[in-house]
């Protein structure tokens, strides 16, 4: 086979170079033609959509009067808070910055440890530097003198950066069904998140329908159906390998005809660098609004163990589907999910919900203070 080697290589190189060259050249031409066109603003607020208030968190300032009155919050809220559950993870791993506390002075080691703590939490080098630099200036100016003050300043800065975001899940106030679309890479927990959110919403008195838009992964629909049974939600599925857009469309139509208020639409996990799959997802989102439904939330599900790649995921999914919020899952493990801090502060996509366990009520509203405390290890 030895003398064949170069033949193969030549052919591969030739076909690749030629074929790809043609494609890219064509693409460059079309792109330059497209770029001169004015792009309309990405999302326009739907007049029929207002934030609901039964899942408010912390310092929410939007108290829209027009909001529909849903069941009492106390009935809905699960017994566990983010703090209860995160404490388990926190006690296992001493806080990343704990060792800094109680030292007598701020020295080079202090900075190294602070930086390392943030990096270990997957906050990322860029965001970490941007967080620490202004604090460094304040230390130089003698505004901050002890390590304890330093950690407090960092904590305050991080909480400040997460303040003011709207973390409610939007829905329509008129009759038609609201659609919440769930997107993300493979294995982050989209289906499980939908199952838990369905239970939460159904418990709050909302009528819910689950649409099994993951027609790719084997038995994904069965998995979602199990969740639908647990929460008493309606369930719509299609054939395995079928068209996801039409499954979700059918789900919305069924919801509209039966007066169901909320459609939770599952999609197959996909890597954000697969252009054809991202195009498919964009189509799913468009088709979901073809009928009676309005997509009021597109939620990107991110696994807390995700590293710096999470930023790329958020960018690509946002481009394809106008992501409105992030759900971070598996935060009850040893990973601290610092990447969602980067996603929210760098890209402005608010974190809305947090998955902290396997049971049906282990999905809770995101609480910035709790999150930061778990991250800096107080």
């Amino acid at each position, binding site marked *: *086979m030895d003398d064949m080697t*170069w033949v193969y290589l030549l052919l591969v190189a030739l076909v690749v170079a030629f074929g790809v060259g043609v494609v890219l*050249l064509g693409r460059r031409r079309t792109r330059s033609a497209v770029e001169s066109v004015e792009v309309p603003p990405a999302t326009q607020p739907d007049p029929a959509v207002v934030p609901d208030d039964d899942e408010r968190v912390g310092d929410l300032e939007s108290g829209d009067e027009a909001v529909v009155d849903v069941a009492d919050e106390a009935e809905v809220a699960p017994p566990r808070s983010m703090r209860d559950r995160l404490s388990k993870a926190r006690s296992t791993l001493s806080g990343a910055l704990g060792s800094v506390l109680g030292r007598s002075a701020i020295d080079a080691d202090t900075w190294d440890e602070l930086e390392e703590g943030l990096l270990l939490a997957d906050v990322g080098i860029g965001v970490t530097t941007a967080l620490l630099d202004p604090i460094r200036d304040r230390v130089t100016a003698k505004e901050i003198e002890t390590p304890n003050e330093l950690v407090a300043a960092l904590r305050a800065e991080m909480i400040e950066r997460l303040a003011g975001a709207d973390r409610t899940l939007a829905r329509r106030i008129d009759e038609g069904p609201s659609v919440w679309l769930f997107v993300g890479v493979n294995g982050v927990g989209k289906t499980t998140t939908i199952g838990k959110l369905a239970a939460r919403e159904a418990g709050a008195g909302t009528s819910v329908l689950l649409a099994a838009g993951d027609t790719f992964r*084997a038995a994904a629909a069965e998995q979602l159906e199990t969740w639908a049974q647990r929460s008493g939600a309606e369930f719509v599925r299609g054939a395995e390998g079928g068209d996801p857009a039409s499954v979700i469309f059918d789900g919305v139509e069924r919801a509209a005809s039966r007066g169901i208020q909320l459609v939770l639409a599952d999609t197959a996990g996909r890597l954000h*660098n697969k252009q054809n799959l991202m195009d498919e997802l964009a189509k799913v989102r468009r088709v979901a609004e073809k009928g009676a439904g309005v997509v009021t939330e597109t939620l990107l599900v991110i696994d807390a163990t995700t*590293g710096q790649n999470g930023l790329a995921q958020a960018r690509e999914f946002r481009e394809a589907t106008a992501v409105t919020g992030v759900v971070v899952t598996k935060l009850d493990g040893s990973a601290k999910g610092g990447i969602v801090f980067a996603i929210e502060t760098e890209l402005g996509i608010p974190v809305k919900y947090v998955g902290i366990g396997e049971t049906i009520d282990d999905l809770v509203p995101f609480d910035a203070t709790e999150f930061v405390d778990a991250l800096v290890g107080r």
Partner: protein
Amino acid sequence: MFDSLSSRLDGIAKRLRGKGRLTEADVDEVMREIRTALLEADVNVQVVRAVVNRIREHAIGATRSKALDPGQQVIKAVHDELIRILGGETLRISYAAKPPTVILMAGLQGSGKTTNSAKLASWFKAQGRQPLLVGADLQRPAAVEQLRTLGAQIDVPVWSQPTDPVQVAADGLAEARRLGRDVLIVDTAGRLSIDAEMMDQVRRISESIDPDYTFLVIDAMTGQDAVQTASAFHDTLEIDGVIMSKLDGDARGGAALSVKEVIGRPIAFASTGEKLDAFEQFHPDRMAGRILGMGDMLTLIEQAERAFEADQAEQAAARLMEGQFTFDDFLEQMQALKKMGPLSGVLGMMPGMPKELKNAKIDDDDLKPVEAIIRSMTREERARPELINGSRRSRIATGSGTSVAEVNRLVKQFSEMQKMMKRFGGAASGGGRKARRAGKGSGPNPFGGLGAPGQTPNLGDLESLFGGQVPGSDPFGGLGRPK
């Protein structure tokens, strides 16, 4: 993956190149950049610290030495260090003397255990083994159904029952013996490394089946937690190797580097796509080459050998050299190339590919218009592109659902390519066939005509072959420019 890491290293190399002396400040700056590059690739903080310190020692040595090009020495130190970390042998599976060879799959939720269990079964089947899959994930709804569906797709039996995971694993082993299957793969539920109860359960599963290999499945997109998780699983289960899943994403896979460094166990397999055969043994040395931009020739050739028909390929190459390469030949080779997997993967393995090409988002579907255009040509047109006049062009454009401009471009570039190849065929020591014969063994390099004597063929040369020489025909010309 690793793209940004290698391009950053390239950037550093460029700036250091030709520097007569390195100052302390130079070294500091370079170290900062290397550190940032590694951290952005999700290499574990502690591993980064150790690596950077080792490289720094070399670098400082280089600043003191009177060697001609200290910059080059720094780059070499970086390369050596990466190869050392990634390095090592490919894991060789040795089968149990008394079958079945038992394999336990473990990992976090969503890392891809079920899918990779099936992929691994498919791999064993390709090795001539008879695997049995056991579904011991009774936690996640429909996990066993998923495994059964996948098992049916690859024609491997799946065994499970709704009892208790430890019981299922033990009974599965008995079942494998009864059926005479020689490889047993046990899929388990995803679990968090800090969940004591679940970790105890997987330990009991492990004790009950006494696996020959325990594989930890890790998502290539994992961040700093990879090391934590891997260490915890290793403490409980004695991991033998890691299966990297979702390596077809654009994650830089620093987790891969770190896990190997921290638990000292190799990455055994890598999953590189959604299809069940997108799964291969992991070759650390080849991956090191890929990171460092040297391409991955061995894998490329292996895949090409599987995809191309030897006779056809040889004939096509000969015609190519003689300038008689037709659209039909091209189409044929394109079909073969498709069998080699996703185009972006093939691109990544090509040595000397221009960066812009490697990083370009190429979808296999992007080539469909090219195919459509060629398929809309008549037989004569394919053999003699010069026949294609204006009215034929518009007919082809309509038939293929493209525009006349696209057809024009394809035809023009194809004829340029033919000319180039003819010229190059003539240059290669007297014609294609002779050159190839001579190329046998350690003879003259058949790529001599490409201007890379005695070296591996370099696509950069092909690039110059297409570009530059004929105005308006450069397929790569504009790629280097920022958008």
